[in-house]
């Protein structure tokens, strides 16, 4: 725990009361004046609250009996979970400006860095390959440009973007809708492990909080709050990503949406955002310019095509930034499988193409 601030353990204790959320915490704080006073609140004070019809007093009473602030701090340390309160100077500055900023954050790993550009990349869990690849490209661009990626560590767009950022050596932070030590969804265990080492896992909820449905929309205000720019990659009409975008607008963050074809269910939300005036994602380089300014170096892709044999050129021209299946490539190039496979493999080894999933190939930029 932070030694400079001796109140920190009381803040942690207040935020650690199971089942209490920000409004309850604020109410307690307003009544008692300081977190320490909440911990020291006598039985008479609690009973008075009860008389006023506050139904969650029992939760405070039980936690008072269960753990002292010192014990709670030790329990956190044991689980390698750290805590930072609103009073602490390490508390993310970006969050100070938003409405309903949490009293404190539990986290594993690090906190987002203040002087790095923060890009939140959010989108559907059930995404298309197009969405996933776009998210990965944006994340890679962010990481290489020296930014950090904020997201929800979920399946689909969120996880893909964060993994891509980590794999390009960048920082990434996951904001959870459950306790910071809970790996949810379980299938993303690898992502969680890497986030802890190469970024952080953040939550305003105390350890042990379950991933309840109601936690996630509230959590989204932190994703947009921690970011400078929010990019929505794929979102259905009624999607959590749109909630994030709404928060972002309220918090004066820049919002970009990746457009999709009209009629694609998975793009309806994004297209709606664009129609409401959010920024449009045109290309990775366009976004890079908007985020990092024109100074960011841009690799030339022209030189690549020069030294290729005719059939290789044919294959290369059929490749796109989004992966195409071997079957599609075969149909469009008309080459026999053995030749096509050989060309693709050579281009992959030469760094011109990459295999995104088995038998799906894309151009390398």
């Amino acid at each position, binding site marked *: 725990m932070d030694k400079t601030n001796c109140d920190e353990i009381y803040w942690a204790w207040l935020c650690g009361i199971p089942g209490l959320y920000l409004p309850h915490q604020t109410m307690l704080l307003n009544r008692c004046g300081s977190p320490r006073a909440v911990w020291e609140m006598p039985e008479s004070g609690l009973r008075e609250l009860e008389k006023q019809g506050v139904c969650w007093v029992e939760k405070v009473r039980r936690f008072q009996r269960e753990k002292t602030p010192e014990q709670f701090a030790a329990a956190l340390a044991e689980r390698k979970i750290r805590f930072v309160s609103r009073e602490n100077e390490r508390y993310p500055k970006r969050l100070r400006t938003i409405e309903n900023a949490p009293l404190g954050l539990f986290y594993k790993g690090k906190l987002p860095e203040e002087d790095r550009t923060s890009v939140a990349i959010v989108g559907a*869990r059930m995404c298309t390959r197009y969405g996933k690849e776009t998210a990965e490209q944006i994340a890679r661009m962010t990481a290489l440009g020296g930014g950090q990626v904020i997201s929800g560590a979920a399946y689909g767009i969120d996880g893909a973007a964060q993994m891509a950022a980590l794999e390009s050596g960048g920082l990434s932070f996951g904001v959870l809708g459950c306790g910071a030590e809970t790996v949810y969804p379980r*299938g993303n265990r690898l992502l969680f492990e890497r986030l802890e080492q190469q970024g952080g896992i953040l939550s305003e909820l105390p350890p042990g909080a379950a991933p309840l449905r109601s936690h996630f929309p509230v959590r989204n205000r932190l994703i947009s709050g921690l970011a400078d720019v929010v990019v929505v990659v794929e979102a259905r009409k009624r999607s959590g990503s749109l909630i994030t975008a709404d928060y972002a607008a309220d918090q004066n963050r820049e919002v970009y949406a990746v457009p999709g074809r009209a009629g694609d269910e998975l793009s309806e939300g994004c297209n709606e955002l664009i129609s409401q005036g959010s920024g449009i994602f045109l290309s990775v380089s366009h976004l890079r310019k908007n985020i990092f300014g024109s100074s960011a170096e841009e690799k030339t892709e022209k030189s690549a095509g020069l030294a290729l044999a005719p059939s290789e050129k044919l294959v290369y021209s059929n490749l796109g930034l989004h992966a195409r299946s*071997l079957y*599609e490539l075969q149909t469009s190039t008309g080459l026999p499988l*053995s030749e096509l*496979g050989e*060309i693709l*493999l050579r281009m992959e*080894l030469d760094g011109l193409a990459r295999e995104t*999933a088995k038998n799906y190939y894309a151009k390398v930029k």
Partner: protein
Amino acid sequence: MFASVISGAVCGIESRLISVEVDISNGLPGFSMVGYLSSEVKEAQDRVRAALHNSGIHLDPKKITVNLSPADIRKAGSGFDLPVAVAMLAAYGRIPAKTVEGIFFAGELSLNGELRGIHGILGMVGEAKRAGCHSCVIPAANAREGAVIQGIRVYGAKDLDGTVKHLLGEEILEPYTINIEETFQNGGKCPKEDFSDIKGQEIVRRAAEIAAAGRHNLLISGPPGTGKSMIARRIPSILPPMTFDESLEVSMIHSVAGILPEEGILCERPFRMPHHTVSAAGLAGGGTVPRPGEISLAHRGVLYLDELPEFQKETLEILRQPLEDKNIVITRNTGSFVFPADFILVASRNPCKCGYYPDRTRCRCSEHEVRRYLHRISRPLLDRIDLHVSAEPVTYEELQNDAGGESSAAIRARVLKAHKMQTERYAGYKIRFNGELPAEAVSKYCQTDEEGRELMQSIFTKKRLTARTYHRILKVARTIADLEGEEKIQTKHLSEAVCYRPEE
């Protein structure tokens, strides 16, 4: 009075000759049957008694003892009715004992004396011939099947009365003969499903060719309606035609199962497609007296498991050992039986429960559901499948294209060439095909040129291959090279083989 005739019993897929002995003695009248019999064999006494009576044969009440020897083999099936009846008549002296010598009898009797067909005739007649019988009397329904065995006279009898008249020389039956050469030739020729019916799907089609050429197992993933089953069904048509010996061997198994076609011999390679609700015993073979399962019925042919993840997990795990050993040993309290099971496994699966993954505009499964669906198939089983391909939805243009693809005959010609190369390469070694190559022999038989070695090294690191996948790519590349008649594996063969590797 005592008499005995020769009959047969099926043990596993082999047949054993059984001597049916009948003794007639004075004393309290009765009928007892001994000799390790199953209940359907014991029931023979009632059928025989009624059949004799209804054929107009009346016998004195005596003490009748029937023994089926050797007594340590479990006898099952209804084929003992006829031999018991004939042996009784001989013991009563109604038929001279001499006339039944050297004749094999088998058949089920109905109560009015008619003879009904039974299973396993082919193997029994073969065994009778080996033991030196000069003729056999079997139900007319099985005559064609029995006649496949050359060098023994086969009489197809309609009823008990006809059999007795034949034995007494009153009304001699015509021996049933078929032109085996012609039957075999015609059977191989008869019109069948052809690869030219398949539109598009070049990759799957090519994978099928490689599977046939190197006897690799094949897994096809793809959404519904992309022709996965159509392609699988046509794989037997590109495998080399069966030799007569192979054909006889396979027919023997099908005869035991009672599913032999009318010609009496199976001329085309079997294609078995059990439904995914098949039980473990149905797939592997089993029962108190084990009968061949689907994997043995697919011997020398193709076993196609449609919707692989829908099969019971325990049922699928059974496949692991037969895929290695090419046979299955089934042990029951009646003994241990070895059933051959040398087949190409072709399996298909949808990419997810609804079938449309990764097309997210149509697929409604969550990531978790997709993963769970694919993980139903165990890794050890997937490890035994060399070729993993996906079938893509067919486009309208492909559907409209009447030309179709290459015919089965053209593909078969290449497959035959590849088989020849493998036969030469593996002469004196324990295996015959690339698909059977054990890991330790891969480096010896799958030699690549210098360039190929470098490529393989870069693929290994770039694609993060496991040792298992590495070996599989080499084996498949070996077959691709064989299809082109190349002794050394080249980079193009390797690059193509990489496309068929399993998804990690």
